[in-house]
């Protein structure tokens, strides 16, 4: 029993990480038609931003509120980088999807390489607040607290995104834009503002995933974002490409399948079963689990 509890909570923690990365990806794809390969780099930037702030930024550190400040800094950097990328590199290629994807591919290679050039290719120990290192006993299992941190954050983000989409004007524009971008502009709305916003918000979530992933894994390395990105892509496809709730469900599914299979079969089998899951979903329901935005 305690094993199952631990596996489930850990799987949900992983799902939370996937969701943080995938929600931005699916919003960006849904609204702009851009498959953002640079998303993994945003994650890396956020993780290194937090790590750097914990060591260098006055007031920031690895405990309590000072750690929160470090995370805020990392997220801010990730957000700024994402917004800048959209304004400078994606927007000029408006509606030229292949070129936009190619630019994000080039960026993902260049940005990760730059991080590697500055801080080296080796993994760096990541600051972990003391609370996150302790465990909480839940139904007889000793669950590390960082799982709860991840899950809680993902739930807050999910609720916040849903509120944004369902009850604000910009959310209305985003939902309409996912359906039919051109008609949104034909109503006199500059849909590009929503593009920048979605990119920045997606970058923020990715950076947050980078920070929390660092806490979860205990270390960060430049390539981490890219390997997480592939599973996030899978989550996005399974979730229906442009749906937030679909993405959330898919993230839970993928996280749990991966954890259980890795434990009960063999290490690595979980990753393989996720790919299998993707193939099964695509072959049986080619449009993914859900086709609605929010």
């Amino acid at each position: 029993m305690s094993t199952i509890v631990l596996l489930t909570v850990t799987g949900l923690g992983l799902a939370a990480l996937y969701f943080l990365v995938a929600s931005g990806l699916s919003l960006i794809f849904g609204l702009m038609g851009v498959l953002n390969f640079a998303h993994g780099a945003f994650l890396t930037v956020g993780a290194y931003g937090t790590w750097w702030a914990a060591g260098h930024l006055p007031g920031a550190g690895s405990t309590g509120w000072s750690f929160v400040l470090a995370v805020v800094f990392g997220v801010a950097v990730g957000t700024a980088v994402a917004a800048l990328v959209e304004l400078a590199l994606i927007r000029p290629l408006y509606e030229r999807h292949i070129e936009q994807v190619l630019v994000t591919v080039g960026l993902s290679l260049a940005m990760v390489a730059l991080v590697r050039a500055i801080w080296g290719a080796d993994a760096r120990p990541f600051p972990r607040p003391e609370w996150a290192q302790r465990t909480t006993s839940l139904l007889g299992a000793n669950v590390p607290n960082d799982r709860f941190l991840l899950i809680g954050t993902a739930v807050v983000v999910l609720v916040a995104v849903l509120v944004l989409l369902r009850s604000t004007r910009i959310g209305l524009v985003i939902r309409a834009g996912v359906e039919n971008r051109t008609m949104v502009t034909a109503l006199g709305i500059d849909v590009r503002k929503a593009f920048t916003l979605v990119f920045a918000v997606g970058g923020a979530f990715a950076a947050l995933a980078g920070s929390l992933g660092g806490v979860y894994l205990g270390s960060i390395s430049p390539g981490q974002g890219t390997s997480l990105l592939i599973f996030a892509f899978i989550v996005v496809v399974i979730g229906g490409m442009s749906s937030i709730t679909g993405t959330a469900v898919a993230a839970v599914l993928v996280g749990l399948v991966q954890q259980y299979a890795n434990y009960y079969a063999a290490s690595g089998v979980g990753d393989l079963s996720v790919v299998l899951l993707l193939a099964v979903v695509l072959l049986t329901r080619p449009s993914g689990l859900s086709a609605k935005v929010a």
Partner: protein
Amino acid sequence: MRSVPIGRFAPLVILVVLAVLPYSTLQVPVLFDGLLNSPGTLQLLALCLLFGGLALSYDLLFGFTGLLSFGHALYFAGGTYVANLALTELGWGLGAALLLTTAVGTVLPLLVGSVALRVSGIAFSMVTLATAQVGSILVLQDPGGYTGGEEGLALDRGQVPDAFVGVFNTVNLYWLALVYLTVVYVVVSWVTRSRAGRVWQAIRENERRVEVLGLRPYTFKLLVFVLAGLLAALGGVVHLLVLGGSTPRTTTSEFTLSLLVMVVLGGAGSRWGAVLGGVLYTYLDSRLTDLASSPAVQDLPEWLRVPLSEPLFLLGSLFVVVVFFVPGGIAGLVDRLRSRRRRGEDDGPAPGRVVEQLKDRVGAGMSGPRDGI
């Protein structure tokens, strides 16, 4: 007018020059460190030629058919690991290993393609990405200790003909890579001019029109997917011999992305463009790595030295610049210069400008965004 026959024979001339190049003892200062026929230079050149061929096999998918696969690495890596296992683990001869690799190199893309091609657009790209990830995971997990995990797998040279072993035989590896490139070039030239090639081009431009003509795009796409996969797997064998082992680096998605970079750099949909892109990328990657450790760079101030120490940073940035300012890559650039000289003639879309034609493909498929109106 006179440039036409020269253009037609250019590949042949280049082939002859490349074939006799190892007999030259020229010293090309800045470009290469040693003499042209020094083992170090020859190995770099061999890698350049090999990746020229590999990039061309990828262009068959992307440039000629419009299939944006993110999993080409799987077949290349499959080639090196299968051949390596056959030689090193099973103790087979090179011929038998080559046969096995050919079989695997046909069946694997056939299996993956038959599933992945049921969906199109981004979904297809994702399925190929995910299946390639399976390869990467398998290799890194090192089941049964067969793949060597992160360390890679050294080749048992005892099983390889002596001609391909040892520093002094680097020239033979160079010729092997040249043969590989030539084979890929000839095959791609031939198939793209065949009836299937015309269907592939039609699929790239407008898949629905192909359906209207009563043809099944699926079959033709599967055909090109398998052919490109097989050519990549054979390239994997050459890579194995040139490097003397298999490395997990060839299984990563980053590796596939670098193939995409090569093709777009050189010019998607152009044979010589893709080859040139592969050659140039490999050369720059290697030379920039050398440059990074050279005293000239080590003495630079930190803000310059740090970015210069990562070839991938420079190549990635170069790629972004090309996508922005040189649509169609090198081939597209040459084409525009040429057509400016003989303006007026309109021969339809220029080779190497395929990316522009593919505009809508990547956004399509799945429940992606729709532009009404």
